[in-house]
């Protein structure tokens, strides 16, 4: 209760629009020139199910729910991310 009013909202949404735009440009710019330093045939360990970020989406979402309803924090718990590119 240090202040009587909450701090004014930080306008982060525009930043994310720029991030989306930058990401989009990255996608269309053709990123194929970079040579992968871990070759596809070297990814057997990464392809092991124990290396998946999440194996069960229902359970992961439920546990996030249990936490979020009792904590002030929220978000960024892995909803983004991605696979290991093992295929």
């Amino acid at each position, binding site marked *: 209760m240090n*202040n009587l*009013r909450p701090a004014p909202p930080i306008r982060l949404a525009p930043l994310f629009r720029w991030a989306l735009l930058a990401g989009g440009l990255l996608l269309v710019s053709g990123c194929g020139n970079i040579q992968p330093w871990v070759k596809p045939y070297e*990814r057997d360990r*990464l392809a092991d199910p124990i290396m998946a970020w999440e194996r069960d989406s229902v359970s992961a979402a439920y546990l996030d729910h249990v936490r979020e309803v009792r904590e002030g924090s929220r978000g*960024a718990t892995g909803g983004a991310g*991605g*696979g290991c*590119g093992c295929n």
Partner: protein
Amino acid sequence: MDAAAIRRSVRRVAVLAALLLVRATTAGVLPDDRADLFYSKYSGGGMDITGESVLVRKKITENLAVEANYFVDKVSGASIDVLSQASQIKDTRKQKSGTLEYVHDKTTYSLSYINSVENDYKSNTTSFSLKQDMFGDLTTLTLGYTHTNDGVGENNGGAIAWLGHAQSVGYDVGLSQILSKNLIAGVNVNVITDNGYLANPYRSYRYLDSGNAKGYSLASQIYPDTRTSTAVQTEAKYYLPYRAAITGSYRYFSDTWGIVGNTYELDYTHPISNIWILEGSVRFYKQNNANFYSDLYQFAGQYNFMARDRNLAAGQNTTIAAKVTYAFLPDGWKMFKRATATFDVSRIAYKYTDFRNIKYYGISSNPSYQPGTEPLYSFDATVYQIYMSMFF
């Protein structure tokens, strides 16, 4: 009422499930068809919450998949926030969701709609996400957008008073990177902006009142009508020299209400042949209070914004969890390629540093506690999950 707190995050969790679905997919190839039966039970702080879920996922073509999920949870009990012992809570939430997922080359598109209904809360969410593999499939970029519209009500003995609406817009950006043959790392950023009726109508603020025998009275909370939060999480997963994996993650959170939260988690995964997977994890979370939170105000209407919701209080919690997965059809059966059964149990210890236990302690207790001197509140909770997944 904890049920009300539950509602606040339900939509985001449902969206998270959809995003996790995308995350579980390796871009370019849709995951196997699957059906899941899920049961959960949370017990702690005077509350019992059971959850039941059915999920079916099916490929329509090699590039297009559809997923449907139905989730019902039932709340009963009386938490610390319900000061009258007679007020037992009973509530049911029903949530339906559908997701379409489309793969083209190295891009995965996902579109979800979620509808959640209770007597006193309605929520509709639409989300879209895009996932792109690049740099020789070493890097995966994910972008997500979520829009939610809620109707917030209060149940007064069966009569629902609709208090207002809340809208939120969320953005997700995630990057997952293969760093070596044994190491993968990720960064996830999430920004959410809310506006509208954001308070929990079942929780109250407390102020000194010499005219009340307890020494204090309760009144409806007054919240700001906007909130913007930012969360950044980093995580890494490492394949150990033997067949096992260790995962570490850290999340920093801050919002325009003054809350700063830090989350640390460590997880160890150990398979035994291809039949069992054992997991153990430890998680620690700590936050400070919102700048308009107080356990006890000096008088009614002291400030423009006043809250005594313990989600906004300073506190911490520690979780220890164990999980075992059993593959009981490793060679398949009829239409099923394989199936697994999982049992997961977590023990969570919550401690608050500026939220006092006024339900069980006060002037009339022995010994007597003046307002503002009651013992701080803490409680332990146990969470069970049992589920079966069949892949076909």
